[in-house]
């Protein structure tokens, strides 16, 4: 049964109900007390996000300082439940301008009630597209580009839009200048052993799109991915062009993309929602270009001294540069004194996270930088507990670089009025979980 929730509660960290909505009669109004006593007040809280107490199951997640708790008593679809919560939070955020926390809920409770009534009926999720809902659910809290419309007077065809086949775009949009912005954002996830072997490495990429297009345009996106190119050359019966092709492990698309067509023709064609959205996500594990190499040496000299040496090398093109590079080098809890030198940037010992934090604002390609530190430890009484040596973590952003090598080959826009569009493409690679064991 695809029921996702019988009731949904928003609680603050103390367990007070901020707002709740019961969709079905099969759970009692006081079930949230059971959640408080059996989950919140025990150390079970972080142990498992799906728990059964008595005849009810609790499915919960924490977002900023709010617990969102779904209560069900049937064999509900949990994946659906969690996804609903994630989407609902995204929707609330888009309604009240970014933040989602206890204050935002209190300040917008009327709106939230109204939305909760609309986006789920009897436990079944309904349309959650902000784009469409904003047509007819408007409140003071709304930050909507359409706020010029008179309030309380719903758009006459709003209902058709909610249920329509293109349930994510309204008709009659018009822009003076038709523009599309494409952002390819990649996160590199790396786990490297202390000896420099890559244990796990993958890239998760997103294609973010911002559309300001009039009418009902049909778009088609071409990337330099292997399958797409092969299929194209096969259809046009001419040999594939040489050049780098990328093998995507997996692709998932926004609901606007015609999946059946992707499956048969391997083309990404869609009618985009208006404004900003995530068009697709992909994952690559083969042929990843790592932007940075990290070579750590950590020596424990006796009981009270340590020597840390970390060399970071940038291995992307010399003309490019990375921004906001942060290297977090873990040190033991009983660190007393640190003494270090860096060739670039600044380093600081941060005792609250037990790390040396080394920041480099701008890191040009094909260069290297070193940090060497001496660390004195408080000699502890009794048996020395072995230090677990958490991994070194790195953060960075490299504009105009894709770790996967993915490139946009074309973006075609068709609209019956035949206007011209301006297309902008940006690339950026960020660190996902970039960890080096030491």
């Amino acid at each position: 049964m695809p029921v996702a929730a019988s009731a949904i509660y928003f609680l603050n960290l103390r367990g007070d109900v901020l707002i709740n909505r019961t969709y079905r009669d099969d759970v009692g109004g006081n079930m949230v007390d059971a959640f408080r006593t059996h989950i919140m007040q025990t150390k079970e809280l972080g142990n498992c996000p799906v728990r059964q107490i008595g005849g009810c199951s609790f499915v919960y997640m924490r977002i900023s300082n709010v617990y969102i708790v779904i209560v069900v008593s049937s064999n509900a679809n949990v994946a659906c439940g969690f996804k609903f919560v994630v989407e609902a939070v995204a929707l609330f955020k888009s309604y009240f301008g970014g933040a989602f926390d206890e204050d935002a809920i209190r300040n917008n409770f009327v709106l939230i009630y109204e939305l909760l009534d609309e986006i789920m009926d009897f436990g079944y999720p309904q349309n959650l597209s902000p784009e469409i809902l904003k047509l007819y659910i408007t409140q003071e809290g709304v930050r909507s580009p359409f706020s010029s419309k008179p309030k309380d007077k719903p758009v006459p065809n709003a209902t058709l839009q909610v249920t329509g086949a293109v349930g994510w775009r309204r008709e009659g949009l018009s822009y003076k200048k038709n523009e599309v912005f494409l952002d390819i954002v990649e996160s590199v996830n790396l786990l490297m052993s202390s000896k420099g072997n890559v244990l796990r490495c993958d890239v998760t990429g997103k294609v973010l799109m911002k559309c300001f297009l009039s009418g009902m345009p049909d778009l088609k996106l071409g990337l330099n991915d292997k399958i797409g190119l092969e299929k194209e050359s096969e259809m046009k019966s001419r040999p594939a062009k040489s050049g780098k092709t990328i093998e995507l492990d997996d692709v998932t698309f926004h609901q606007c993309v015609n999946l059946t067509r992707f499956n048969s023709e391997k083309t990404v064609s869609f009618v985009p929602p208006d404004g900003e959205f995530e068009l697709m996500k992909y994952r690559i594990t083969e042929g990843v270009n790592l932007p940075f190499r990290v070579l750590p040496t950590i020596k424990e000299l006796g009981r009270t001294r340590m020597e840390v040496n970390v060399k970071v090398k940038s291995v992307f093109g010399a003309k490019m540069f990375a921004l906001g590079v942060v290297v977090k080098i873990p040190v033991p809890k009983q660190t007393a004194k640190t003494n270090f030198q860096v060739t670039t940037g600044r380093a600081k010992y941060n005792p609250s996270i037990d790390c040396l934090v080394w920041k480099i604002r701008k890191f040009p390609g094909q260069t290297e930088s070193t940090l060497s530190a001496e660390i004195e430890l408080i000699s502890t009484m009794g048996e020395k507990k072995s230090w677990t040596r958490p991994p070194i973590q790195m953060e960075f952003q490299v504009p105009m670089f894709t770790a996967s090598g993915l490139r946009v080959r074309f973006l075609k826009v068709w609209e019956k009025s035949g206007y011209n569009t301006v297309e902008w493409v940006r690339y950026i690679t960020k660190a996902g979980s970039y960890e080096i064991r030491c």
Partner: protein
Amino acid sequence: MSGHDSKYFSTTKKGEIPELKEELNSQYKDKRKDAVKKVIAAMTVGKDVSSLFTDVVNCMQTENLELKKLVYLYLINYAKSQPDLAILAVNTFVKDSQDPNPLIRALAVRTMGCIRVDKITEYLCDPLQKCLKDDDPYVRKTAAICVAKLFDINAELVEDRGFLEALKDLISDNNPMVVANAVAALAEIQENSTSPIFEINSTTLTKLLTALNECTEWGQVFILDALSRYKAADPREAENIVERVTPRLQHANCAVVLSAVKMILQQMELITSTDVIRNLCKKMAPPLVTLLSAEPEIQYVALRNINLIVQKRPTILAHEIKVFFCKYNDPIYVKMEKLEIMIKLASDRNIDQVLLEFKEYATEVDVDFVRKAVRAIGRCAIKLERAAERCISVLLELIKIKVNYVVQEAIIVIKDIFRRYPNTYESIIATLCESLDTLDEPEAKASMIWIIGEYAERIDNADELLESFLESFPEEPAQVQLQLLTATVKLFLKKPTEGPQQMIQVVLNNATMETDNPDLRDRAYIYWRLLSTDPEAAKDVVLAEKPVITDDSNQLDPSLLDELLTNISTLSSVYHKPPEAFVTRLKTTAQKTEDEDFAEGSEAGYSSSNPVDSAASPPATTGNIPQPAGRQPAPTPAAPAPVPDLLGDLMGLDNAAIVPVDEPATPSGPPLPVVVPASTGQGLQISAQLSRRDGQVFYSMLFENNSQAVLDGFMIQFNKNTFGLAAAGPLQIPPLHPGTSARTMLPMVLFQNLSPGPPSSLLQVAVKNNQQPVWYFTDKIILHALFGEDGRMERGTFLETWRSLPDSNEVQREFPGITITSVESTIDLLTAFNMFFIAKRKNGNQDVIYLSAKVPRDVPFLIELTAMVGQPGLKCAVKTPTPEIAPLFFEAIELLFKA
């Protein structure tokens, strides 16, 4: 900029409700709207604003959609508590359902469906009928769900009014969202109905698969879930279905992906072509892996499902083990699940890499995770013969780190490795012995002792090692004692020298005389007999070759696995339990309230100990207490110690040494009333009754396991009750194997968790075990189990007490159905239950008997029974300082005489 609704939460302290009332009736629109918002704010923080019902409903007739929605929200919350006033809203609802604005039409139908008040439901039918045929798809999609709501309230009405047919028509609607909601509604109705309502044939299948392309993401989930139970006619059809579903694997919504996977796996059962299957497996892997980049909670759901999928089709993710490597910052629940899957995917090809990972995890901070990582190494060793040696060397490296819990966990798994590969890796025993004195956990100790015993002939100082444990034998936990016993016997058989001989004397003495653990005692006696009758036979038995073990932990039974796979992405697949095991579909609301109150635990005041509640308790538990409880013929040896007797017979020996079992664990009393029948307890039958023995209140219980599984970890809890009855100790039930039963007498204490409110005989009990959901049942407190042995009174005191109590404290009841056959037998009967005879007299041809009794906390009960011997009719009068308990007393009298 964001809203400023928080201002509505600020209260004006006193007179809030009257003030709101005034504002609600204001002539200004804005003021009314603000007032409604304040009411909703008060409702949100849990204040009772139901008294404003009429005033709020008056605001309902408005053009302002926002205000209307707020009023509707209020109605959903309070209509149930004010059913008579709710009717006031009906007119507006009906009117709204004909509004030109489709949003308002839909809103009216949607809200009416949420109000579960019979009077409103009656009026819902006509608007619903119209809305199902509305021109606007938004209204139709809302009406479709509303049919499911109505079915939940009144299934008959739905069938009578032909809503099911209307709903089926919507499957062919031209709007995909209407189709999706209709499918969801029909699937739900089918699930709760026994007659075939929504059967998918090949035409509907095609229709729905086409709709799939145009639906919203949620609609796709509804349709895929509904179709996943469809059985294709032949492999060809199955292949066709799969072909149309596979594109869904590319969807960004994890629920769509999982539902698609579920459907594909179902159809794969029918597909015969190995090429097609291989191809499908290849296609499913990437989307499953992608789920692991979602939010951690979604990852958890995905991992629990992948665990199932991997057991069914290991090939799908055989090459993807790396994606399950734990990240340092993964939440613990994700790490634990990843570890489980890594073990399942470990193979000769990737074991080196996997072992490096496990070793890394074993040095992390979280103790539970570290333990599991160590155990994982052991399980890999048992699973992969060729890798066993490498696993052991990793374990030895970990032991060298000397982190206490790592060492202990390592020893536990090494014991298993020894069992799996006997006579292969014993060279490491010396290393293990080094950490002997750091062991403090029972399981690790027991494992180490097992190793010493098993390899006693190779360990030079085995006797010394064992001896060091023997000193603390009586204090050790049962698990360790059992191992010590066996290990000592092994040692003796292998090295029958003087040292071990003395040791065995000590152990056997300890294990037979000083213990109250029947398992230990029995095992000791068997060894003793064996050794004294035929040491050679003992050798054959004790040192026999052991069967080879395999790693089957966390491997599900194939039929259960298949069932779980049909439930992918639901709670069932997360719990790894079939839906019946945790969904208690309670049809009666009465039972439901009871359940909820229990779940609240002890902190919520249990105020529902009124007669209504006890009447609503399950029929199996009330009013059938056929046996007078407490009738356990007190001091007679109710426990005939069957086990030692059996042993005596078996050995043909007179056993003077055997101590009688003195614990009240196995009395064979009269049959107890069944409180949880096997049919509702999933095979577990529980019978129970309060009783009294030797001045102590017990809860006699009988557990019968008719299920297929071993049940263990029994626990019991009593809800608050009038006398504050609670368990004095833990429930001691050994693991129950299928087909066996266990009896126990649980000592009870009084005045532990008193319930406020009027006295009631209701005793609500919850019993749980490790395998099943919690069972709740209701029993009766039988008052005569509580009457104290010190209830006897002197005649004078009796008279004095009688006089000192005001007449208002006297309560009378007539029992026309009870006949007294003789005065003496009556007195005997009542004395057996601590109601003591004071005097008797004749009043005409009637006999009058006076008795006294005492309930705990020294509350006297003065009893006067009047009856004509041989004639039906008994009059009973009691005088007591707490006349509220009298009804309970009458219940007891009725029970005693009826039996």
